[in-house]
């Protein structure tokens, strides 16, 4: 067997699905943690900034700062300048700057400054860069510095910068220098956070400046990203590893068994197709045990195989039975046909008449029959009959009828007597609703005188020498087998040399055309007979038969078609007038 190519094997599909699921979940987890972490970091820094600002602001001296805004930097000389051991320069700016730098260091702050908005510009009292611009050191990035509107170098006291956005931003808080309240303003970038903490006059609580602190956590973020990426890669590797396990499991427990079962199913189909094999036990011999769905599939297949065996066995039996019935029906048809006289001419030494008859059954065994035989040396018995019904019952009824008629005829009974006896005998069994129409005649071959009886049969056709074929109409009695006690009566007729007698069953006039279902009818029959009126019996019947075939076309033949023709020649030594 060739393994059929499918887009993705079950194995591949499961592996892909598991990997996609694990990747999806890990990415989701990564994203959530990143967001949560960032948020948490922000809050953490905000709190830290407020704490640091409060602490620093309490240390700052307002008088010093107002001087620094003016650009003044006072240095007080203490002691003896000539004695280094006794000399000290008191520089509050330097002290404050150092203090802020140390605090900044301690709290990982990037920039600390004391500012005052003046119009759209900012005036600086102090500007402290903790680590400068060395990107290798923990520091604020240049892009961040620009975004946070920080100066690019440390500004001196009293310097005026015009970072437009920042001063506008402070203005928007609605608090101006000199107002009796302050407002803490936070600004944020992707990786930095900045506080502008109001500095208030201790006496009258008037705002005189802001302490601005900027913290950059880009390094931290970079670290988080790197760690996240590493985690992501780790999960990816784990996902692949975890995907392999189910794939191995699927392969061992599902794909391989299914493949195995499908191979066996193919074997089974091939075995069943091979008409020699009827009983197979492919799944029965398969060793397979599993309690999961594949096991259920296996058991179903085993059951199916057994059912198929039973079915095929039954089917073969039914086929054999049908075959036997058909053979028997064929045999019945043969027996039935063999009952009818088939040898023509039947009496080669008889010159008084010529006769021909034929029966074409509709399906298998029919109910029509014709018969002719010598009752004695001088009397010819002619029978044309039609049993109502089809098949074996009709065939049996026909054989009984035929034998009864022949028995009575050979006893020398007259046609009416024969029919009375036949009818009473057939009517004995009331439960069989079958009957037989019979036209029966006994013809004296020497004189041409005949006696006939018509028990529900079609009108016979007679052609007198030189004339046309014509229907002979007279009273018909009911068919034999209908009701017991019917008194059949016979009538006499006379054939002269050259006369022709044509009898048939209803299969002839009631043959129907395929299209409009029109009946052939007796008018067409007479036309056909008269077209070739001089024809000998066999030819005459042959031409009616071919006419019928042409007429019915592809229409189904519903009834048996039976015809008999007797042409009387008379005897040279027994002229009709002679007796």
């Amino acid at each position, binding site marked *: 067997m060739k393994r059929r190519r499918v887009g993705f094997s079950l194995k591949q599909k499961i592996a892909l699905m598991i990997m996609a699921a694990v990747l999806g979940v890990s990415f989701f987890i990564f994203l959530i943690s990143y967001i949560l972490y960032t948020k948490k970091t922000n809050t953490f820094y905000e709190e830290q900034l407020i704490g640091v600002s409060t602490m620093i602001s309490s240390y700052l001296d307002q008088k010093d700062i107002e001087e620094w805004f003016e650009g003044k930097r006072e240095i007080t000389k203490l002691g003896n300048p000539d004695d280094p051991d006794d000399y000290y320069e008191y520089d509050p700016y330097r002290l404050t700057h150092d203090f802020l730098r140390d605090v900044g260091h301690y709290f990982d702050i990037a920039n600390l400054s004391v500012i005052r908005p003046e119009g759209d510009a900012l005036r600086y009292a102090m500007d402290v860069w903790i680590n400068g611009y060395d990107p290798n050191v923990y520091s604020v990035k240049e892009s961040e510095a620009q975004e946070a509107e920080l100066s690019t170098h440390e500004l001196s006291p009293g310097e005026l910068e015009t970072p437009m956005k920042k001063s506008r931003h402070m203005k928007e808080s609605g608090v101006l220098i000199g107002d009796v309240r302050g407002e803490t303003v936070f600004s944020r970038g992707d990786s930095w956070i900045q506080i502008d903490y109001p500095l208030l006059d201790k006496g009258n609580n008037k705002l005189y400046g802001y302490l601005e602190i900027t913290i950059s956590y880009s390094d931290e973020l970079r670290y988080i990203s790197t760690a996240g990426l590493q985690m992501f890669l780790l999960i990816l590797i784990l996902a692949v590893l975890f995907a392999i396990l189910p794939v191995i499991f699927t392969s061992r427990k599902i794909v391989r068994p299914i493949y195995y079962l499908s191979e066996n199913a193919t074997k089974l189909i091939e075995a069943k197709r091979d008409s020699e094999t009827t009983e197979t036990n492919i799944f029965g011999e398969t060793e397979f045990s599993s309690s999961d769905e594949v096991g259920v599939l296996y058991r179903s297949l085993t059951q199916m195989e057994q059912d198929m065996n039973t079915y095929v066995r039954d089917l073969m039996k039914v086929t054999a039975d049908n075959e036997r019935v058909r053979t028997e029906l064929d045999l019945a048809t043969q027996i039935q046909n063999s009952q009818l006289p088939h040898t023509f001419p039947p009496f080669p030494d008889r010159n008084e008449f010529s006769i021909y008859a034929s029966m074409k059954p509709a399906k298998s065994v029919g109910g029509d029959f014709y018969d002719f035989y010598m009752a004695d040396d001088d009397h010819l018995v002619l029978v044309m009959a*039609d049993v*109502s019904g089809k098949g074996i019952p009709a065939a049996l009824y026909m054989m009984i009828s035929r034998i009864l008629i022949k028995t009575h005829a050979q006893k020398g009974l007259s046609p009416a007597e024969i029919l009375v006896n036949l009818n009473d005998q057939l009517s004995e069994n009331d439960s069989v*609703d*079958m*009957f037989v129409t019979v036209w029966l005649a006994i013809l004296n071959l020497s004189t041409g005188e005949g006696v006939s009886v018509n028990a529900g049969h079609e009108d016979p056709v007679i052609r007198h020498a030189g004339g046309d074929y014509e229907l002979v109409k007279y009273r*018909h009695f*009911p068919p034999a087998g*209908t*009701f017991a006690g019917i008194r059949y009566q016979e009538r006499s007729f006379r054939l002269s040399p050259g006369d022709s007698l044509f009898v048939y069953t209803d299969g002839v006039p*009631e043959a129907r055309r395929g299209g409009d279902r029109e009946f052939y009818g007796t008018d067409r029959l007479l036309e056909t007979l008269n077209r070739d009126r001089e024809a000998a019996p066999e030819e005459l019947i042959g031409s009616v038969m071919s006419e019928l075939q042409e007429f019915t076309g592809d229409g189904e033949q519903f009834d048996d078609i039976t015809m008999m023709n007797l042409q009387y020649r008379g005897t040279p030594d027994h002229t009709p007038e002679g007796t």
Partner: protein
Amino acid sequence: MKFDMNQEGTRLTVNVEGELDVRTSPELEKELMPALEGITEAVIDLKEVTYLSSAGLRTLLSAAKLMDRQGKMVVKNVSDDVMEILKITGFDSLLTLE
């Protein structure tokens, strides 16, 4: 072939339409025979029947045989074509025609 049956007491009227042949007669027979149980007068109306084959005659005969035992059966409104068939087959003397 179509037919309908109408029972009034022990009288059953059957109206038959169309062709009563080897294919359609069994349908009629299957319905008619059980319906005749307990009927003393059966009227078979063949007004709309256009063709009657020997299978149709057999159905009529079965009904006639049954009704012969338990009452009477009348066949009425026979068309000329059907009458011709009844005459040929001798059923005209077997059935009570009206």
